[in-house]
């Protein structure tokens, strides 16, 4: 797993939901439901994640060291008791690591380069 100091050079192009998850976390730490809603908003309603795909992606990103869990907030944002059984539980928050931030930037640069190349090529052909 990459550490904060080791920038990974072998990351393949990220998949669209992954980019949106990292983007959702780029400004501030967020809990699962907020990430889910942000991904939907950022993609203009095109990418709607199920909880299974969201947490599968979060598990992978945690494993790769691109995101990390931040301190749980036990007061203001506790999960309501009707969400599960028993007492309200503390919500878990996720945030980007330094490595995650750099990987996101690298991916956005890659996409920008791709877009620029496509525009140039299409402009040349007058499309």
């Amino acid at each position, binding site marked *: 797993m990459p550490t904060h100091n080791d920038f990974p050079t072998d990351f393949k192009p990220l998949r669209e939901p992954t980019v949106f998850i990292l983007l959702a976390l780029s400004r501030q730490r967020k809990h699962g439901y907020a990430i889910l809603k942000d991904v939907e908003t950022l993609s203009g309603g095109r990418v709607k994640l199920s909880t*299974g795909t969201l947490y599968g992606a979060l598990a992978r990103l945690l*494993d790769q060291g691109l995101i990390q869990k931040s301190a749980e907030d036990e007061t203001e944002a506790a999960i309501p008791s009707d969400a599960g059984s028993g007492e309200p539980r503390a919500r878990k928050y996720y945030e980007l690591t330094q490595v995650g931030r750099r990987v996101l930037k690298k991916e956005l640069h890659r996409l920008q380069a791709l877009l620029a190349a496509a525009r140039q090529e299409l402009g040349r052909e007058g499309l």
Partner: protein
Amino acid sequence: MARPLLTRLYGCLLKLYPQPFLAEFGDEMRAVFAQAINGLGVAGFPPFKRRIEMIRLFLKEVWDLPVALLPALRFSFGSGRKDAFANAAGDREQDEPDAWVGSRASWGEALMGALPFLLFGLAHFLIAIHLLGKPTDMGSRPWLLYGSGLLLLIAIGLAIGGIKGYPRWSYAYLGMAVFLSSNYSNGTFYGVAYGWRFWVPLVVAILLPLLATRSLRPLARLIQGAWNDWTRLSFALYAVLLPLYTILFFEVKWGTDELSGLAIDTLLLAAGAVAFLRSRTIWGRVVTLQAAMFIQACKGFLFAGWLGGPHFFSLDLWIVLIGLLFFGGFMFLPGLVGLLQRGVSALSTR
């Protein structure tokens, strides 16, 4: 009405995810799903449309399940598994040195420990039904079919034990797997000797926990467990008893009398395994294993008396007797080392 039902169905769906993944994310996933369902009410949909949207939300979870399972499995067998492994029962034992010996297995663990004996009995019962009245022969089909099936199941049990940090019950799987692999690798099936191939399930079962945790930690725990509680080795040897007894002494022919004998042996030794695992002390464990073996031997001699004298066994009765005494003593040795170890440590602390 739809909300509680869908939440309950979602709970059932979550059970399909691997346990380490659920332990890490299960509560959050349940909460996020409930929030998403509640969010539809806030969004101001009319009741009918809201219900349709709720069902659509649930169906999306079902649809995405195969894709979502892949990273969940990767997490469970990857680095996330390491944390789960670190929290396994074994680490409680490490924190409390006395717990290696003094902890009592739960009923579920005791059943897991008895399972190899029951599986062995079942497999040989099936073999015997095929061979009823015929001479037993290693070249026949049932031996290959049920024998290798049994070995595979025992190896799976051993692998599960390895992933759980080799708790006490898993040593029975180890003993039986080693014995069966050794026995089958020396045999021939349809005139073909498979040799080392019968060792493959055992090797895979030992390698799998190492790969799952990406460390030598499971192997270390296997040795550590035997060192701190020597009766675990006695239990591994005890697991050899039923196959040894069956293979050595009932090789002449299979009949209904032999089948009833096998059923009694299976239940007796399985009960001995449960008593061993539920016992708290070294003495208790040594006594339960020896007692089960003694009762089994008595049963063997009683059957021999009823069913036609010493030649009921494929060997002479006195050889059987010496063999049993030798094996009993051998099985007692690890327990004896454990008792001495405890005695020495008790003296040194005074």
